[in-house]
């Protein structure tokens, strides 16, 4: 429907690739950075979905054809606010994790390890 901006598309690709890589890290701080990158990527997708850049969309000054599509920008703004809030919450969580665990690594599931140990114990008995 719209012509797509190649440079922006490539940037989205890089943001998603980098974001996914960081998200898979064990340290929560890196996951947060990954999430921030992914969030930027998704917001760029939203902006791009409105088509090419146009003039500011004032109802009485710009014609409908020349104006930029305001709707995706409104959506991107909403998404930016949400990602901002969640990033703040995640940073607080990472801080708390350093306080209670000593680091911000995502720990293994303890119950899984317990079940595993139980299993090994049963096998040794047999």
């Amino acid at each position, binding site marked *: 429907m719209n012509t797509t901006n190649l440079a922006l598309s490539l940037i989205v690709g890089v943001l998603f690739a980098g974001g996914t890589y960081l*998200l898979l890290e064990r340290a929560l701080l890196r996951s947060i950075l990954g999430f921030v990158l992914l969030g930027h*990527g998704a917001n760029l997708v939203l902006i791009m979905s409105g088509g090419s850049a146009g003039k500011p969309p004032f109802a009485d000054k710009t014609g409908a054809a020349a104006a930029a599509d305001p709707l995706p920008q409104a959506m991107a703004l909403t998404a930016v606010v949400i990602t901002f809030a*969640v990033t703040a919450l995640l940073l607080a*969580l990472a801080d708390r*994790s350093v306080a209670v665990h000593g680091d911000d690594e995502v720990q293994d599931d303890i*119950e899984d390890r317990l079940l595993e140990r*139980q299993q090994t114990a049963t096998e040794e008995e047999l």
Partner: protein
Amino acid sequence: VTAATALVSAPVALPLLAAGLSLLLSPSPVLQRVLAVTVLTAVLGDAALLLVRVDTVGPQVAHVGGWHPPLGITLIADRLSALALLVAVLVVLVVLLFAVGQGIAERRAENVPSVFHPTYLVLLAGISLVFLTGDLFTMYVGFEVMLIASYVLITLGATAERVRAGMTYIVASLTASILLLTTVGLVYGVTGTVNMAQLSGAISELPPDVQRLLGLMLLASLGIKAAMVPLHWWLPDSYPNAPAPVTAVFAALLTKVGVYAIIRTQTLLFPREEPWTLLLVLAGVTMLVGVLGALVQDDLNRVLSFMLVSHIGFMLFGLAISSQAGLAGATLYLVHHITVQAALFLAAGMVERERGTASLARLRGIVVTAPLLAGLFFVSALSLGGIPPLAGFVGKLSLLQAAVDSAAPLTLTVAAVALLASLLTLAALMRVWLAAFWGLPSAPVPDDRPEDLADVATPPARLMTASATAAVLVGLAVAASAGPLSSYTQRAADDLTDQQHYRSSVLGEQVVAQP
């Protein structure tokens, strides 16, 4: 403000306003409690009115601020969303009473004002928004509102164990949210609208490859939220660590909101005539993986969490059959599953409170010390396993009938898997029954989780028992009203397969369309 606008906006607006007020009232827990219960009761009444109106008059539509699509936000209640909303608000209210009884609602850590009530109200606002929204972007916003509230609730008190569980939960949910947001962007890019009524026409004109891609991206992003195998890994790790009432409300509602969103988007945007092979396979795998996981767990909450995953498969199965009967079955199962999961997790919460542990290896003989609690668990377990005449049986029966009607080989295979999964569900729950409830009681042996020590040998407060009983009674009421309920879900399924009706309700000149 028309009656429709007021009725449809109230479930979102009231809890949000009350959440702000509740934060101001945080010095006074009593006022917070009164406010939350009052608002939830009001929303419950509103949801009941909405259900009656939707069923007799037709879909209720509100264009927020008078802005019409594609610019404005559309709220719409049809039969499926009105029913889901009513059951959800009912469960939210019951669990709130349980939380008040348990005292978790007002427990403070390090002089931080109690945030339970405001967050809990925001959670309900998010859930209502997803149920009532008529556009994809607002669905994303609704999910975010709900999830942000859930991030706070799951890490309540910020103990070491909850911080650990919260990390997994938050990172998994965020990944799903980003994926959903990207999908919304792509949908807008190719169609120029996010309003679902407009999309239901616009998407069918796209090239088939693009349609398939968008459909799969929506399924994947919502599938993480619904805990569909293989996207379920985060759930059994995180849910069991939250406080009991929080786990109950999450298990009852959050995944089902995901299932609702899958049903809504797939039926409206990507209607199918034939059974959907991919989702059939995923549904079958979900049923088996969940129940097999439940068979080996030691922690009662984790058994129930795996069971929750397993039964998500049943609802997806109903959708995958792609017939009216299948959708009606999925809707019925949704109602049953919301109520039964809440009841089971509340019972588990009471077990943990009474014995100071939820480990099956340490529990014994609850049937002697707390016969009522054992009875509540037993009835809910039988219902989940699908024993007649309980609600689980009604739901499973309608799903299996739909499968037999469609008569495709793969559908019948998955139906057989569903029967096997039901049997294994019974086996897993009877294992819990024999280990924890049957036999002669042992002295309470607390495990080393600090919070549990505080709760050792505290008999459950009367309000906890009453609300857990109420949750079970709601489940029994679902079974008792199976006749009217299943004819209602038939009509809801008719609505879901009639996209033209949905479109004219939202976009037509006449805001309230004739049924």
